[in-house]
């Protein structure tokens, strides 16, 4: 009994922190409609800054009240200022770009922040001081419970109350609420949007920084907190309803308690399996989110988002039809690749194999995001399940490599069938978050199912059949299969099926009004995209000889997104160029520069600001204007 109560209190503690981060994220989204991927980084920055600020204030002596609380406040304020700078220098330039580009820009900030933290504070975990006066524990039902955690439990509702006052009792709050409801109308009334956006961003960042800083007595500052926190915060915001602060509070409570309960219950035995719930918190969290989204598509307290008018330049252009010159270029590239092994060294061959595989992966994601109009943040699920499907068929079921490479995509297709059925019931950001949730579930299952998947070690010894074991032979296999698959995808885009998908994207209303079953077509789009991503995954597994859960981690999904967006969503050759550029950059830069992520982040920001339609998109529109 007492352990349940304690877990309940633990749940409240983590709910408070979750709420601080999610409230900021929700506030920013509500008004700017930018889903800020960098919000987890702001949280992380908060915890590191608090560590240093308290250290400086304490000056080697004991940590006084002033040093501790002053440090936390300074840390949160600095993060708030960083947020404001971020808005002014980067985001303000991309408000008129397509939604996904804004996401890419914030992701670039994630990369920058990560390297900044590594550079300033190093890779070691940093343990902060205890809070003076709150370092002890109180006894609750016979068990000790940290005083500081009790304090944190109170912080959540306190901040909720302050935010409510700010939003409902001040002029600024009135403007924020007005702009959240109808940005166009607010602008038409002559509200200074720039100032409003910057201040909302600063406040959101401040809250994230505060959430991070307040954690310093409880957990060490770690350089991977950004991703863990952002996923949690996304889940909370989506469950609560985008843009709703009370919703975020409710959802934070729900998620916090669900997680705490998983840890409290511990291992559960059923059907001869032993399931360790504490390890599956992420799965359970994602399941809660999936359940909420299916029954309340706009979250617990959200409402349908007002559709923003198409920003200039985001209008879907007609898809490029291949001109004779382009077709010649395509043939030339394939011919060039076919003779590459004659003069390329081992290293470049490996790089080209990677590029080809990721070009297929990116093309399959593009199929979903471009023609089908469904942004997937969890496309790595299909890539990874394809890889694991093939590897398991080969290692555990003993199938030959040639058959295993088919089984991988089949597994991925089955997963797409299951995940897609739920996803197509939502749209926009909500759909994207649900794909992310499913990917996280897939990742957790693979990561935890030690006996089957080898857990974090992955599976080794996944080698191609003897006749394909040479580097050159495998290169040709990849060239033929990826080339054919990309060709098929391209053909599908121009087929009646592809037209139907684009029609559903352009106007679901009109599509239904000519008798198209919109959801069904979109569901099948998931199937196609999942299957081809699975093929890429299977080829990847055999090219590396081993796989780890990394192949379906969020980083892999984000790589796919970056490839597609770098190349340009509106073009078919975009994802190919994006895959080549990103894979090559990662190889090249990671090899020679320590802080390659920061460089990549900078490159992305420059590209996003300078080429809002992606590399290929920009080139082709420039060509059009020239003609």
């Amino acid at each position: 009994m007492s352990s349940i109560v304690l877990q309940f209190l633990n749940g409240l503690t983590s709910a408070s922190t979750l709420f601080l981060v999610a409230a900021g994220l929700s506030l920013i989204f509500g008004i700017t409609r930018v889903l800020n991927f960098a919000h987890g980084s702001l949280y992380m920055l908060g915890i590191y800054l608090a560590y240093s600020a308290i250290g400086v204030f304490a000056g080697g002596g004991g940590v006084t009240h002033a040093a501790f609380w002053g440090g936390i406040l300074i840390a949160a304020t600095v993060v708030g200022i960083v947020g404001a700078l971020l808005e002014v220098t980067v985001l303000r330039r991309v408000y008129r770009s397509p939604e996904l580009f804004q996401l890419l820009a914030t992701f670039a900030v994630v990369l920058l922040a990560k390297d900044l933290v590594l550079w300033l504070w190093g890779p070691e975990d940093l343990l902060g001081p205890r809070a003076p006066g709150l370092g002890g524990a109180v006894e609750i039902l016979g068990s000790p419970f940290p005083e500081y955690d009790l304090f944190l439990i109170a912080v959540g509702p306190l901040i909720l109350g302050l935010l409510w006052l700010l939003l409902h009792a001040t002029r600024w709050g009135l403007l924020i609420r007005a702009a959240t409801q109808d940005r166009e109308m607010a602008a038409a009334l002559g509200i200074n949007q720039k100032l409003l956006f910057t201040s909302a961003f600063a406040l959101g960042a401040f809250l994230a920084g505060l959430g991070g800083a307040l954690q310093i007595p409880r957990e060490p500052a770690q350089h991977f907190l950004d991703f863990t926190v952002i996923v949690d915060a996304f889940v909370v915001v989506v469950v609560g309803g985008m843009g709703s602060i009370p919703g975020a509070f409710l959802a934070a409570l729900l998620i916090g308690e669900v997680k705490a309960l998983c840890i409290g219950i511990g291992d559960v035995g059923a059907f001869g399996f032993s399931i360790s719930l504490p390890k599956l918190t992420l799965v359970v969290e994602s399941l809660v989110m999936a359940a909420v989204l299916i029954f309340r598509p706009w979250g617990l307290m959200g409402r349908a988002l007002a559709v923003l008018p198409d920003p200039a330049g985001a209008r879907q252009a007609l898809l490029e039809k291949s001109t004779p010159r382009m077709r010649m270029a395509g043939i030339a590239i394939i011919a060039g690749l076919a003779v590459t092994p004659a003069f390329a060294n081992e290293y470049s061959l490996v790089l080209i194999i990677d590029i080809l595989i990721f070009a297929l992966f990116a093309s399959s994601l593009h199929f979903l995001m471009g023609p089908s109009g469904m942004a997937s943040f969890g496309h790595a699920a299909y890539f990874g399940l394809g890889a694991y499907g093939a590897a398991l068929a080969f290692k555990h079921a003993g199938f030959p490599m040639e058959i295993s490479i088919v089984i991988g995509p089949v597994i991925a297709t089955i997963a797409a069938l299951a995940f897609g059925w739920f996803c197509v019931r939502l749209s926009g950001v909500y759909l994207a978050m649900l794909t992310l949730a499913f990917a996280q579930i897939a990742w957790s299952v693979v990561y935890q199912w030690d006996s089957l998947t080898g857990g974090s070690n992955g599976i080794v010894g996944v080698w191609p059949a003897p006749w394909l074991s040479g580097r050159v032979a495998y290169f040709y296999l990849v060239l033929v299969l990826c080339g054919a698959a990309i060709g098929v995808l391209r053909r599908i885009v121009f087929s009646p099926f592809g037209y139907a998908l684009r029609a559903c994207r352009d106007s679901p209303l009109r599509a239904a009004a000519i008798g198209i079953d919109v959801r069904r077509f979109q569901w099948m789009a998931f199937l196609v995209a999942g299957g081809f991503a699975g093929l890429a995954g299977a080829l990847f597994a055999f090219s590396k000889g081993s796989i780890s859960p990394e192949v379906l981690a969020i980083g892999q999904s984000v790589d796919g997104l970056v490839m597609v967006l770098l190349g340009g969503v509106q073009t078919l050759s975009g994802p190919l160029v994006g895959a080549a550029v990103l894979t090559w950059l990662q190889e090249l830069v990671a090899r020679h520069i320590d802080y390659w992520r920061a460089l990549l982040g900078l490159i992305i920001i420059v590209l996003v600001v300078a080429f809002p339609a992606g590399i290929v998109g920009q080139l082709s529109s420039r060509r059009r204007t020239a003609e």
Partner: protein
Amino acid sequence: MTILRVEGISKSYSGALVLDDLSFELEAGEIIAMIGPNGAGKTTCFNILDGQLRADRGQVFFADTRISSMETHEILRLGVGRTFQIAATFHSFTVAENVQIALLANRGLLWNLHSAARDLCRDEAQRMLERLGMLAQAAQSCSALSYGDLKRVELAIALAGHPRLLLMDEPTAGMAPRERLELMALVARLARERELSVLFTEHDMDIVFAHADRILLLEQGRLICQGAPAEVRADPRARRAYLGHDLGAP
């Protein structure tokens, strides 16, 4: 033959009654105008007819098939065409492709993953556009059209499915006066040729009285009078509710 039978449909949004026990029928080949002030429930009625909304009470039959619990795409496949108050087209396609997609959808040919869609149903789409006087714009992108032309493309899309019933929500809204008359004259001509029934809402009374065989007048969700144009024109309730006195004088 009765093509559409609406039996006592009601609908309320958060307590406010938008449609109150509405019943009417539409015969094959008939052109009916549904008129009434803004907020009378016309668009809600249309959205119930095409399955986007569910009525709280009542039933709708299309040629004896009960459609009031069917999905939009199922209803539209039965032979119902629809245009919207704000024209909805596929803006990333050309005008001709818009019509081609509708033709392909009508024939169940969209589950084809290998043919080039551009070459399918091409001639038929061209013929359809010719009828509507849009042939010159066939190769243009829909996003480059004027609003009046867009409305015409939408009509072509709706007609591509060879519907027996056409639902048009304010077909001429946002068009220039001359375009309006031309468009409705065209619709009326097509309706006669194809034995097409048309139900449309309209605020332009010249168009309503010129083309409607019958008029339904809605006010606050209730059908307050119906009949031939001359009858409605003479009805004091219609004058009071909507038409005003000046229009009444012949």
